[in-house]
C-alpha cells in the first residue's frame, strides 16, 4: 500500500448521484489529487481534467522548442518539420552526423569543414542506429524534413488513397445526384419504383451509411449491359498486394530469424497502413510528434481555468485557477507510523495497540491490524486571505459496497456486513486562520489565532462521532482540534478497526467550509450548481445581487474527500504476508 492519501471527488463522471464508494476499483477515476484540480469561480465548482474542455493554444516541437505556426501543423501531420527525428528503435532523439572525412589517417583533417562532409545521416547516440542503413542520407545537414518530404509524398499509401478517391468520386457524385433528384421529383421521375421498393430503399439508405438510394433507372441500365452488378467499375489498384511480395518475404525472414530483435515490434509497425517489411532493419526514422500547449475551460460556463504562456520555452501560466487556491489543502498523517516523540506520548491512550508491534511489523508500509484503534491527524491549510470555518463529516460507507470490494475474502454473507471500521471525527466546526504572507517568514504562530472567535470550539466534548466509535473525550485528546499553527489547523481523528476487518481503510468525508466572500461578483449565483454535488448555499441574510451590501457575503462550499489510511493486515501477520504476495 502506498502512503495514506487524500483525494477529492469531482462529480463529472456521474453528476447525479452521490460519490461512488471509494473502495470500488472504478471509483479511482472520480477522485483526484488536489493539485490536479481546477476551480471554476463562476460555477463555484471543482473541475477536473476529465471534464474541462481543452483547447490548443499553440503547437511546439518538444525537441527544438520551435513554436510551429498552426498553418503548417496540418501539412506536416502534427510533426516537427525541422531537423528533429526519433530513433525508430529506441525513440531517442537522432542527431545529424556527417560522414567520415575521406582521409582520417592523418588525424589533421578534422577541422577542415565545420559542417562535415556531404553525405549526412541521422545517428542515434543511444542504440547506434543510423539512417544510412536504411538508405537515408542527406545532402545538407539542415532542413532534413524537407528533403524527406519527397519520400513521404510519394508514399504508396497516400498515392493509393488518392486513386481510391478518384475511383469513388464519380460514383458518389452520381448517386448523390440521383438521390437528390429523387428527393425533389420523386414520383415523377421514378416511374418504375413502386411504393415497396421506395420504402425499402428509403429505409436502407437511412440505415446503411454511405449508400445511395436504390435507383431503378441506373439499376436497370446496369442490368442491361451486364457490366457489373456493383453499379461501379472495378477498381484497379495502383499496386496490388500480390505484387509487393512483402508477405512471402516476411515469412521467409521469420522462418530464419535467430533473435526476436531482428523483427520490429508491433508498436514500431502498426502506424504503417501499407504492407511493409517486418524487419527492424527497415524501419525509418520518425519525425518527432508535436506537442501542444493547452488551455482549459470550464465545460459549462466557458471560463478559462488555465492558460499557458504562448512561448514553448516558458513554463508559466497566464491564467491559473487551480483548486489549491480555493480549497483548504488537506494532508493526513498517521502518527503511529512516525517514530517521534509526539506519537510515543500519545501511545498510552490507545488501548490494546502496542506501538512496538507496529513498528516491528515486517512491512514498512502503513499496515493496520484488526481490532485496534488508531489515531490519525488531518491538517487543513487555508490558502485564502480570509479565515474559514470547516466542518467535516465522515460518511458511513454504504454497506453494499463491501460485496464488490476486490480483495474482500470475507464471510459468506457479505451483504449483511457492516463496514469493517468506524471513523471518529470531530463534528463541530473549527476555524482555520487566514493565509498571510507574513507567516512565510514569521514563527509567531498565534498572531491572529483568536482574531475571530472560535465560537464553536467549546463544543468539542460533545463530539458525537459519526460512527459509533468509543467516546473518550475525557482522556488525552486524540479526537478534536489538536493544534493550530498559522493558517493550518490539525484535527485528530480515530479509526476503530473491526476484528475481522480486511481491505483498505478508505472512507468518504464531506468537507464543508464557510468563508466570507469579499469580492462581490455580479453573476447570479444560485443557478449554476446544477450538475454537481458540491453545493453552494448562499446565506440568505446577505443579498447577493445588491451592490449596496457592505457586509461581506458568507458562503459555504462543500465537497467530498476520500481518505485512504492504508491497508488492514490480518491478525495473523504471516498469513497476511502470504496473502499479499
Amino acid at each position, binding site marked *: 500500500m502506498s502512503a495514506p492519501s487524500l483525494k477529492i471527488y469531482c462529480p*463529472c*463522471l*456521474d453528476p*447525479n*448521484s*452521490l460519490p461512488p464508494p471509494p473502495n470500488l476499483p*472504478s471509483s479511482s*477515476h*472520480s477522485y483526484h489529487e488536489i493539485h490536479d484540480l481546477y476551480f471554476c469561480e463562476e460555477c463555484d465548482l471543482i473541475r477536473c481534467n*476529465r471534464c474541462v474542455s*481543452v483547447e490548443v493554444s499553440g503547437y511546439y516541437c518538444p525537441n527544438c522548442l520551435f513554436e510551429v505556426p498552426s*498553418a503548417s501543423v496540418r*501539412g506536416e501531420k*502534427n510533426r516537427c518539420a525541422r531537423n528533429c527525428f526519433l530513433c525508430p528503435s529506441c525513440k531517442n532523439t537522432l542527431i545529424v552526423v556527417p560522414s567520415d572525412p575521406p582521409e582520417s589517417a592523418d588525424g589533421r583533417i578534422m577541422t577542415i569543414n565545420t559542417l562535415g562532409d556531404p553525405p549526412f545521416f541521422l545517428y542515434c547516440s543511444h542504440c547506434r542506429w543510423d539512417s544510412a542503413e536504411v538508405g537515408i542520407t542527406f545532402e545538407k545537414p539542415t532542413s532534413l524534413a524537407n528533403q524527406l518530404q519527397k519520400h513521404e*509524398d*510519394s*508514399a504508396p*499509401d*497516400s*498515392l*493509393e488513397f488518392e*486513386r*481510391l*478517391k*478518384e475511383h*469513388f468520386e464519380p460514383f458518389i457524385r452520381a448517386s*448523390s*445526384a440521383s438521390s437528390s433528384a429523387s*428527393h425533389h421529383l420523386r414520383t415523377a421521375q421514378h416511374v418504375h419504383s413502386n411504393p415497396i421498393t421506395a420504402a425499402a430503399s428509403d429505409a436502407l439508405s*437511412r*440505415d446503411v*451509411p*454511405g*449508400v445511395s438510394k436504390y435507383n431503378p433507372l441506373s439499376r436497370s441500365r446496369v442490368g442491361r449491359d451486364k457490366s457489373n452488378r*456493383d453499379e461501379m467499375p*472495378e477498381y484497379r489498384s495502383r*499496386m*496490388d*498486394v*500480390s505484387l509487393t511480395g512483402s*508477405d*512471402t518475404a*516476411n*515469412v521467409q525472414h*521469420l*522462418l530464419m*530469424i*535467430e*533473435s*526476436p530483435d531482428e523483427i520490429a515490434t*508491433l*508498436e514500431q509497425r*502498426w*502506424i504503417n*497502413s501499407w*504492407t511493409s517489411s517486418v524487419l527492424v532493419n527497415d524501419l525509418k526514422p520518425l519525425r518527432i510528434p508535436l506537442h501542444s500547449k493547452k488551455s482549459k475551460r470550464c465545460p459549462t460556463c466557458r471560463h478559462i481555468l488555465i492558460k499557458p504562456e504562448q512561448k514553448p520555452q516558458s513554463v508559466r501560466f497566464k491564467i491559473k485557477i487551480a483548486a489549491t487556491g480555493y480549497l483548504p489543502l488537506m494532508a493526513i498523517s498517521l502518527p503511529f507510523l512516525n517514530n517521534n516523540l509526539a506519537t510515543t506520548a500519545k501511545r498510552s491512550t490507545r488501548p490494546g495497540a502496542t506501538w512496538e508491534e507496529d513498528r516491528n511489523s515486517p512491512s514498512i508500509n502503513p499496515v493496520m491490524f484488526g481490532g485496534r484503534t488508531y489515531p490519525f491527524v488531518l491538517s487543513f491549510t487555508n490558502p485564502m486571505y480570509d479565515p474559514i470555518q470547516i466542518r467535516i463529516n465522515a460518511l458511513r460507507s454504504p454497506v453494499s459496497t463491501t460485496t*464488490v470490494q476486490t480483495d474482500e475474502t470475507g464471510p459468506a454473507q457479505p451483504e449483511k456486513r457492516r463496514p469493517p471500521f468506524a471513523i471518529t471525527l470531530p463534528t463541530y466546526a473549527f476555524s482555520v486562520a487566514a493565509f498571510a504572507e507574513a507567516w512565510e517568514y514569521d514563527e509567531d504562530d498565534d498572531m491572529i489565532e483568536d482574531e475571530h472567535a472560535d465560537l464553536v470550539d467549546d463544543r468539542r466534548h460533545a463530539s458525537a462521532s459519526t460512527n459509533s466509535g468509543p467516546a473518550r473525550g475525557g482522556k488525552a485528546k486524540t479526537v478534536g482540534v489538536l493544534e493550530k499553527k498559522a493558517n493550518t489547523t490539525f484535527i485528530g481523528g480515530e479509526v476503530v478497526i473491526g476484528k475481522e476487518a480486511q481491505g483498505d481503510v478508505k472512507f468518504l468525508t464531506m468537507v464543508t467550509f464557510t468563508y466570507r466572500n469579499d469580492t462581490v461578483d455580479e453573476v447570479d449565483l444560485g443557478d449554476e450548481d*446544477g*450538475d*454537481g454535488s458540491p453545493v453552494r448555499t448562499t446565506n440568505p441574510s446577505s443579498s447577493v445581487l445588491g451592490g449596496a451590501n457592505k457586509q461581506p457575503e458568507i458562503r459555504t462550499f462543500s465537497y467530498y474527500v476520500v481518505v485512504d489510511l492504508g491497508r488492514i493486515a490480518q491478525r495473523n501477520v504471516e498469513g497476511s504476508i502470504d496473502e499479499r504476495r
Partner: protein
Amino acid sequence: MSVPSTPSKRLTLDTATTPTTSRVAATSSTVHSSPHYQTTRRHSLYGTEDRIVIDPGSRIWKVGFSGEGRPRDVFFGDGQDGVPLWGLTRATNQLDREEEDRALQAMLQERLRAVFHDSLLTDPKSRRVIVIEHPLLPLYIKDMMARILFTNLQVPFVSFAPSHLLSLLAVGRITGLVLDCGHLESAVLPIFASRPLFHHLKTTPLAGARLTEHIRSLVLLFGKYTPPPPALPAPRSAAAIQRQTSVPAEALTNAVVEEIKTRVCLVGKAFELSAEDSRPSQQQHVTPYHASSNDDVIDVDHPSSDAAQSESEFSRVSMDVDSPAPGSRVASSSYSMVSIEDSQGTSSSHLGEHGGSQVLADLYKRHSTASDIKMPVAPPASSGGLGRGVLMIPGWIRERAAEVLFDGGDVDEVSVAEVILESLLKVPVDLRKTMASAILVVGGTPMMPGFIPRLHAEIARALAIPSSPQPQPSKNRKARPRPPPYDRYAPLRQLLPHFAILNNPDPPKAEKVSGPSQKKSTAAGKAPAFTPACMAWVGGSLAGSLKTGGVEIPREKWEEADVREEVETEDGAVTTVPSSPTSQVYNKVLPDWTRGPLPIGAPAANAHVQAQA
C-alpha cells in the same frame, strides 16, 4: 444524410487536375486535400470537412484525420495489463455489471479525450467524428461512446460506420465478403452494393485472444527458460547459468506473450500428413479449455506416455488425407486447445494431456522449419538474479501456434476458414459466386505473415471432395447402405475455383488447372496493399473525405433525446435519482442495424425529409 453537400465544382476540379501522374496529385493533396481549405477556413487548422476517424477496438485504437492514407496514431486502448476494454461477456451480477460499466466508461472517456488532446491535438468542438464500429459492438458501448463524445467532448456530429463496409471501400469495392479477424472474435459479413447483409453475419471466437492463450499454453509446456545468473557473490553460479528449466508462469506475462505473438509468430503453410503421422485411432479425450489456468508451472519432463492414445486429437489433419469418418470432425476439435491443467487436476488427465500435446508437438515439429529463438524476458520477481532470463521458444511454436485458428470441426467454434463458408451458406444462392470471388480479410490477426495464403488453402481444404468414400466400410452391419458422411459445405463445392481473397499477398496461380474455369479468380491479390489491420481505418478515412461517412447524428438531436437526464440534473445537485449512464435506457437517436431494418408499417410520406433532418 450521407449525401455530400459539396458542390460538384470541387470534384471536377480534382479530377481535372489529376489526370495521369498520381505523384503530382498526391503531393498537392497531402498538403491540403480540400482546396477550399486555403480560401475559406484559413483560421481553422483543418477544414471542417476533415473528419476525425476513430477505429476503437477492444485492444487497439487507430485514430486520424480523414483524407489521409494512414492513421495519425495507433495506441493500446487497454492498459498495460493487456486486458481488453470489453470482452464477450458481461458480469451477470447487477452490482458487478454496474461497476464494470463505470470502469469502462471512465476508461473510454480517458481514451477518447486522449484521441483529441494527445494524439490529434485538435479541438473536438469543431470536428465531425466517424466512429468505426464493429457490427457486433454492444449497444451499451456504442451508447457510452456517443455520450462521451457528445457531452464530455461536445463534438458537433458523430456518425457510426460499419467496419466491414469501410474495409471494403479501402480496396475500391462495395461488394464482397469481409472477414474481420480481431482480438475477441472473427466475424464474416457479406456486403452487397454497399449494403451489409447483417443477418448473414457469422462469427467464431477463434481470434487473437484465443491465439494468445494458445501461445501461452504452448510456451509454458514446451518452452525452456534459462534464469538469469544469480547475484555475483553466489558461489554456484556456473552451474545455475547452464540450467534450463521449465517456463515459470510469472515470467510469461501478457506483454511477453503479446510480443511473441506479434513479433516472432507466423503462419506456416498447410501441411499434409505423411503416412506414419496419420494412423487413425479412435481414442480421444476431450480436454476442456481453461482460459485462465496459467498459474501453475507445469513440469515439462513428460513421461513419454503413449502416443497412440491421443493421436486422434489431430485427426482433422489425417482426415484430410484419407477419409473423414463422420465422427472425426467432432473429435478433432479436442486438440485445439493445448491447455494447462491445474495441478489439482486428476493425474490421469494430466498425463493424457501431456501425452496429447507431446504428440501434437512432435507432429508440428516434423512440419515446421522455423528456427528456435531465444528471447530475453524479465525474470519473475520472486526468483531474483541479475539481468534477464532467456526464454527459448521452439520454432514449431512460432510456425504452428496459429493452427488453432484453422482447426475446425467444432460446431460452436468453427475455424476461421469455415466461418467464411458458413456465412456463404447463408448468402442467397445467386450471390454466392460474387461473394466467394471477393473475400477480404482484415483485422489485426491477419497481420501475421502467411495468414491469408493459409486461409485460402484452408478454404480449399474444407471444400475438398471427401476423397475415399467409404474408408471404414460397415463391416458387419446390415446391408443397408451407410448414409453419406455429413458434408456441410457440399453446396459450395462448385464455387471452389471462384474463391478469391482480394488481399491475398500470395494468390494461388498455377494450381487452378483442375478447375473448369480458371479465369474467374482474377480478383485474388488485386487489392491495394493496405495492411489488413488498417483497412477499416483507411476506409473510414476514405469515406470521410468523400463525405459519405454514414448517418450523422448532430449533437442537438442527441441532447434532445437525452432530455430526460437533463431534467434530472436541473433539479438540484445532490439528487438521489439513480440515473447513471449505466442504466439500460439507451438513446434511441443512435442508428443501429439491430434496431430493426424497417419501421413498423409503411414509411411516412415525408420519410426522406425526416431522414435528411
